[in-house]
């Protein structure tokens, strides 16, 4: 072929691809009928398993800090379901008319996680100078729960623990990562995250008095094109295959 002709064909192909890309981005669903679920990072393992077993068809997940996901919905992202590690984020979205009324579907416990063979054995140890701690950022649920806990501690303890903080991660899996890599000596995560590491990390339970009330809530996003299936998904979280997977992973029943 003559060079000019090749050039023409290439230009035509490039334009065709550009047009196709634009069209693809215009609201077309990825796979016909896959449900899009934005969920807190701590829900990753049990929800992924639930997704495989979900009778309503394929499910596509996006796991990140609940605050990040909530903001995305606020900015116009349209997953079908939003599942958060607290009730306030979905509550706010509901008040803004972006989601349907949220449903609480699980509880969890905040623990102090340490590497399996660690010298840190208690919260008091975490307050010692030289101990490196990782917590969540202020706006992510695990981070705000942690601050609740520290607020309940007698003063010098809380200050010392905060002074030991070396990283404020955007989601709980980031804290887990720092722990498993030995970057920090202790971190505040959910007990389910520790269980998921199958022995690499150990959970140090917090006193009942310090324990915040951790409630997970899910809501169907308004404007979803899969209303029935979205509602079915949420229902399954509350009492169904989803709830079973959550329990198996160590999540607690929703607090009263």
């Amino acid at each position: 072929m003559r060079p000019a002709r090749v050039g023409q064909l290439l230009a035509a192909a490039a334009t065709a691809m550009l047009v196709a890309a634009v069209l693809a981005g215009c609201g077309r669903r990825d796979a016909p009928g896959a449900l899009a679920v934005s969920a807190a990072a701590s829900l990753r393992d049990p929800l992924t398993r639930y997704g495989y077993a979900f009778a309503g068809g394929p499910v596509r997940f996006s796991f990140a800090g609940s605050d990040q996901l909530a903001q995305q919905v606020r900015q116009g992202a349209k997953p079908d379901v939003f599942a958060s590690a607290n009730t306030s984020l979905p509550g706010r979205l509901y008040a803004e008319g972006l989601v349907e009324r949220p449903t609480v579907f699980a509880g969890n416990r905040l623990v102090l996680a340490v590497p399996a063979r660690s010298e840190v054995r208690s919260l008091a140890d975490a307050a010692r100078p030289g101990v490196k701690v990782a917590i969540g950022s202020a706006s992510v649920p695990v981070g705000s729960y942690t601050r609740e806990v520290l607020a309940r501690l007698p003063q010098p303890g809380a200050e010392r623990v905060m002074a030991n903080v070396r990283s404020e991660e955007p989601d709980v899996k980031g804290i887990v990562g720092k722990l498993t890599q030995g970057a920090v000596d202790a971190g505040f995560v959910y007990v389910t995250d520790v269980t998921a590491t199958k022995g690499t990390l150990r959970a140090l339970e917090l006193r009942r008095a310090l324990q915040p009330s951790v409630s997970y809530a899910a809501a169907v996003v308004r404007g979803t094109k899969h209303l029935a299936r979205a509602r079915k998904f949420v229902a399954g979280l509350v009492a169904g295959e989803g709830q079973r997977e959550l329990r198996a992973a160590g999540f607690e029943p929703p607090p009263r």
Partner: protein
Amino acid sequence: MTGPRVFSVLLGLALAGAVVFLTLPIVAIFIDTSPGRLVESLGDPTAREALRLSLETTALALAIIVLAGTPAAYLMATRDFRGRAVVQTLVELPLVLPPAAAGIGLLAALGPRGILGGTLERAGVELVLQTAGVVVALVLVAAPFYLRQAEAAFSAVPTSAIAASRTLGAGEASTLLRVVVPTARPGLIAGAALAWGRALGEFGATLMFAGSFRGVTQTVPLAIYERFSVDFPAALALSAVLVCVSFALLLAVKLLTGRGGAVAAR
């Protein structure tokens, strides 16, 4: 339309599409932010700290990259040694590595449980969760951008000019300083600008390897990410600041290399 006309139109469409696609997100940032908000954002101590940290760490990373990378690029460009192609590919690898993978790689190599973890600990060097760790992550992701450009720039220096310098009494090192680097300057500066830009925007590797902590490791991209969930307009404002800084950077490069540009084009 005739053949050549069609071709021109298609080319024009492709260019227009590219320009719109590339500039729209940037323009959108500025449309959504008000200048007042932008300035307010600068007054915020966390924003200022993030900016200071970003500028410090990227400048340090760039200094390391240029100082160590220039002789390395010169070696790759001028000597044909065995395994040169392999070395070149290895050096360019971080270019195609997703930042998250780069972060994991850094942890696996230099983290406390990593290959050199014990050595670093014994030497008293702390990288993870420290500003030094940020610099290391930036060097890893940005270095290939400089090395590639520098190597190309050095290759383009006419060998006869190097030979002439030698016959006129200048040794290898002297020739490098007096002839090679000045001739390759536009390419070197362009490479440095690319590397700096890449470093300024680095997120994933920094987060995984160095963590995110105000004043220590939370660079502007990390700060934007954190703000996004809490205060979208603030995130926009900080993004706008980053765009302005990057723009100023690119402009400075254009001006610096403007004089040498014509020569480089030959």
